[in-house]
């Protein structure tokens, strides 16, 4: 049996080690989700346009990004970009930029599926009312696509929240790293990981419940 010793967890320790990491995970998830959705929407629109000079770059970008392990993207960006621009960049900024760039590839596929699930008739109806392409996308297609895709986007966001731990590669500090470091310094890794598992589960599960409820609220009445 395990003999567990959680005595080293006290408020001072949690606020020193875990909270800062939690805050970082949260902010990174938020920024990367929003940025990824914006950039991903752009990529999706490029892929759906019929112009090859827009389709191909988007296609290559999306498939390339999805093939490389995220941790490698993070590492390469952090190590190589300073050599190119001749000036160091902070780990936080690297993390934000790479996560947005990476998530955009995934979100673009989700959004593309969402846009394609809108019946062609809806697009035509918007056009027939005299809307421009941009108006039609903004007012008719995307609002419906986002509503339909909300659950899938949520799953992606949960994965993203869990993946923030990969920033360890560039010495940034997320929640998992917080637990891990505390566990090491106090010689109690098992306890630290157990608690981390519980905390992650509670956060991710609540998040998915919350979004499920939200989805029911804003779901399109059919």
């Amino acid at each position, binding site marked *: 049996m395990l*003999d567990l*010793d959680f005595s*080293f967890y006290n408020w001072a*320790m949690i*606020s*020193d*080690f875990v909270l*800062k990491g939690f805050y970082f995970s949260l902010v990174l998830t938020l920024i990367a989700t929003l940025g990824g959705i914006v950039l991903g929407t752009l990529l999706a629109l490029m892929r759906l346009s019929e112009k090859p000079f827009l389709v191909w770059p988007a296609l290559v970008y999306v498939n390339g990004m999805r093939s490389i392990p995220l941790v490698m993207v993070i*590492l390469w960006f*952090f*190590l190589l970009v*300073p*050599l190119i621009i*001749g*000036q*160091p*960049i902070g*780990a936080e900024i690297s993390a934000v930029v790479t996560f947005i760039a990476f998530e955009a590839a995934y979100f673009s596929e989700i959004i593309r599926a969402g846009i394609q699930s809108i019946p062609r008739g809806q697009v035509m109806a918007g056009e027939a009312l005299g809307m421009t392409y941009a108006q039609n996308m903004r007012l008719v297609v995307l609002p419906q696509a986002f509503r339909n895709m909300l659950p899938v986007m949520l799953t992606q966001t949960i994965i993203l929240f869990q993946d923030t731990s990969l920033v*360890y*590669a*560039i*010495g*940034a*500090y997320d929640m998992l*790293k*917080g637990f*891990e*470091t*505390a*566990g*090491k*310094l*106090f*010689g109690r*890794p*098992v306890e630290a990981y157990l608690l981390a598992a519980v905390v992650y589960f509670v956060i991710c599960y609540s998040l998915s419940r919350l979004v499920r409820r939200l989805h029911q609220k804003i779901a399109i009445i059919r």
Partner: protein
Amino acid sequence: DTLAKIKASGSVTEGVRESSGLSYTLGNGQYTGFHYDVCANIIEDIKKQLNLPNLQVKYQPVTSQNRIPLVKNGTVDLECGSTTNTEARQRDVAFAVTTYVEEVRVLVKANSGINGLEDLAGKTIATTTGTTSVQTLRKHKRAEGVNFKEIFGKDHADSFLLLEGGRADAFVMDGSILAANVAKSKEPAAYKILDEVLSVEPIAIMLRKDDPAFKKLVDDSIKEQISNGTLAKLWDKWFLQPIPPAGVTIGLPLSAATQAAWDDPNDKPMEAYSVQE
């Protein structure tokens, strides 16, 4: 060069580790440790020499994978983690004079009946991914012809857990790391470190290559700290007294090898050291 860069930007970036024996975090963006203190003294000397009383110190946490590229690409000026000075690395970076000599040793359970390297035959040996300790064991002549299974922990705490949980019979690693893990464990008396030393490795502060002025400043600062007894006091503080955050005592007396390095400050790589048996 580095000094000009420090002067121009008014800041110096120090590379630190999240959890290594010589440099670790206290959470909240604060760092501490033996090497951290040495570097703090060095930075005081930089302030004096450049006449920059308000020099800002930035901390960049590094890992064993990215520390060298980060020094090379200019992100980190002064790496104060725990990096072994090797010939291969000297092609990419420079090292200050050795501040600490590490001995690679073997940790076993006290009741395991293992008393020397020859008892390791047929056993499972844990080490940490991304370290060269097992390579050393493989090449060690007293262990030659002794077959053992290797198992990798993803970090030192994980490797120690392999030993604690019975998945491994021994843990091969730097002596200070072994001592620290035993000290922090639930039952320190249950472990013992074998007498044999597998290899000795000079640990030093890492700098950018080809910057003699900066290296001289750092070297001089360290030599000064040796001669005025600061380093000896820091040893006492970090290895013989209770340390934060948990207040355990590592209990590692100053080794002869480290004393020798202090007596004759140098930046020789690991290859120039040989194991005294």
